[in-house]
């Protein structure tokens, strides 16, 4: 480490003002502070800094995503070999199949996203922001495994430029960048983002008879309205037609956008985020409560007209991207509400709206993405209302004490 530091300190003057590579200053700075704690002190204003800078925050969020990520890769392999009817593969074979299936997407997301961030930082003379470290891994995780890389590249470029850089870069975006990417893909290339052919990686091999690549929510959305209530809610099956139990759903053994299927791994991630104080428990709690209440309401008044309403509330929460969105998307500190009361309202509404979209709109089998994006737009308004209510309350108090 010391040798590396000496070497880097040697080339440092070249990147400073007047140096040969002055233009690349922010690139150098980015790598330098990535490796070492900068030995700089502030000359004015605030002198005490939290050691928890945005780099460390991002790294911990990536760490908390790892369980989902590793499980997701394994699950890709599991679904693949299940679909082509080969059993008896070892865990490593399953894992590496998934790993190599998603590696190009992860690389694409990072290269395009970080590339744009670097270029913009150079143009503006800013420091390079670390915001994309998390988005880059989040984006492939919330996309189907068969998403072509060029689509991902276009979507990432669109999201980074229009949702983030035009508003001033990391920390100024009012929409979650990963979700904008997902939404762009969803609306631009619907045939590659939903349906029965994208969530299981078949890899040019023939699937066995009776195979269906639909996700449980996709299955529900494409069911014929009508029929008896009782068998609708229990008719969820995995890719080869065996029924799915709540256990399978909780641990994530079903096809879907690969990072978000396992509620169990998401809860591990949530625990890491909460223990390290990175994410806000209020948003998570109120989100789950909101989603659960809405699921109970939907289940209580279930109609065969909307098959998704027949799902048990607990299953409803474990399915699809709901938990993932609540834990990793809704808690994004930049796009969420800032006020405490606002956070409760924000999380609650995300939960409620996600389940409403999922249950009552057959066009969108999963509503978590749209719910979070919608509430992102309203976060500032909620904050404004909370603050002005508080101001009014305190004004009243002073009036009372004055009179």
């Amino acid at each position: 480490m010391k040798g590396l530091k000496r070497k880097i300190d040697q080339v440092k003057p070249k990147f400073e003002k007047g140096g040969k590579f002055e233009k690349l200053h922010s690139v150098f700075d980015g790598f330098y502070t990535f490796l070492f704690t900068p030995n700089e002190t502030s000359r004015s204003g605030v002198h005490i800094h939290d050691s928890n800078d945005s780099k460390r925050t991002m790294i911990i969020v990536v760490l908390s995503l790892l369980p989902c990520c590793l499980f997701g890769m394994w699950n890709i392999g599991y679904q693949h070999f299940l679909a082509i009817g080969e059993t008896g593969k070892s865990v490593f074979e399953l894992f590496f199949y998934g790993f190599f299936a998603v590696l190009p997407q992860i690389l694409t997301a990072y290269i395009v996203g970080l590339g744009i961030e670097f270029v913009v930082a150079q143009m503006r003379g800013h420091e390079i922001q670390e915001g994309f470290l998390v988005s880059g891994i989040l984006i492939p995780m919330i996309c189907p495994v068969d998403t072509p890389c060029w689509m991902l590249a276009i979507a990432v470029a669109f999201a980074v430029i229009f949702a983030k850089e035009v508003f001033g870069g990391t920390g100024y975006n009012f929409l979650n960048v990963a979700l904008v990417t997902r939404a762009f893909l969803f609306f631009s290339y619907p045939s590659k983002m939903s349906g029965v052919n994208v969530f299981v990686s078949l890899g040019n091999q023939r699937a066995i008879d009776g195979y269906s690549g639909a996700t449980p929510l996709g299955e529900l959305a494409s069911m014929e309205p009508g029929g008896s209530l009782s068998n609708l809610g229990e008719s969820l099956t995995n890719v080869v037609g065996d029924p799915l139990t709540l256990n399978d759903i909780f641990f994530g053994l079903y096809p879907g956008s690969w990072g978000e299927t396992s509620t169990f791994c998401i809860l591990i991630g949530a625990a890491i985020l909460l223990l390290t104080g990175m994410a806000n428990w209020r948003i998570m709690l109120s989100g789950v409560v909101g989603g659960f209440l809405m699921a109970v309401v939907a289940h209580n008044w279930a109609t065969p007209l909307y098959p998704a309403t027949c799902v048990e509330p607990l299953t409803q929460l474990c399915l699809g991207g709901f938990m993932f969105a609540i834990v990793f998307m809704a808690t994004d500190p930049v796009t969420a509400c800032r006020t405490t009361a606002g956070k409760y309202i924000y999380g609650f509404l995300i939960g409620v709206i996600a389940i409403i979209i999922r249950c009552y709109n057959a066009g969108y089998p999963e509503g978590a993405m749209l719910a979070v994006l919608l509430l992102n737009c309203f976060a500032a308004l909620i904050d404004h209302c909370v603050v002005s209510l508080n101001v009014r309350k305190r004004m009243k108090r002073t009036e009372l004490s004055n009179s």
Partner: protein
Amino acid sequence: MVNPLSKDNPVIVQVLGICSALAVTAQMEPAIVMTISVTAVLAFANVIISLLRKTIPNSIRIIVQLVVVAALVVIVDQVLKAYNYEVSKALSVFIGLIITNCILMGRLEAFALNNRPWPSFLDGIGNGLGYGIILIIVSFFRELFGSGTLFGYQVFPQWWYDAGYMNNGMMILPPMALIVVACIIWVHRIKNKDLQE
């Protein structure tokens, strides 16, 4: 007449007529027909109002303007239905909605009521074209990336599609028109520093 094309463009500087710019720009042909229609209506409405400007009582001038514009729009609508029924169907209600296009009322109020017929005519042509340029640029990008065609002819070669290229469905949806307009405004403001706020 040249001013509305860039510096004083009704769409990207005054931000008028956005609604129809979203609605008719999914393909180039309707966009061009819309441009011609708006330009024609605007130019002749300007001339007529300018001729009448001394006789219109101030208190009912808006109604008079509406009547003139509505009459012209009906004529344009009928002509389109007679000679280009397909496009007229594609534009459907938006030809009728030229009446409510803010650019028209804006030009009539701000220019035709105070100027002689010939300058008013030029002003109408200029503003109509300024609106049309934006429409055509937006529809160019939307049709190219949304359907892979221009004027209905396929532009991207077939082997692109065979290799996995797909049209961008979002380009067909109206929100993308807003984003394309925003990009045009972005580029335009970079070129015209004095417009930056």
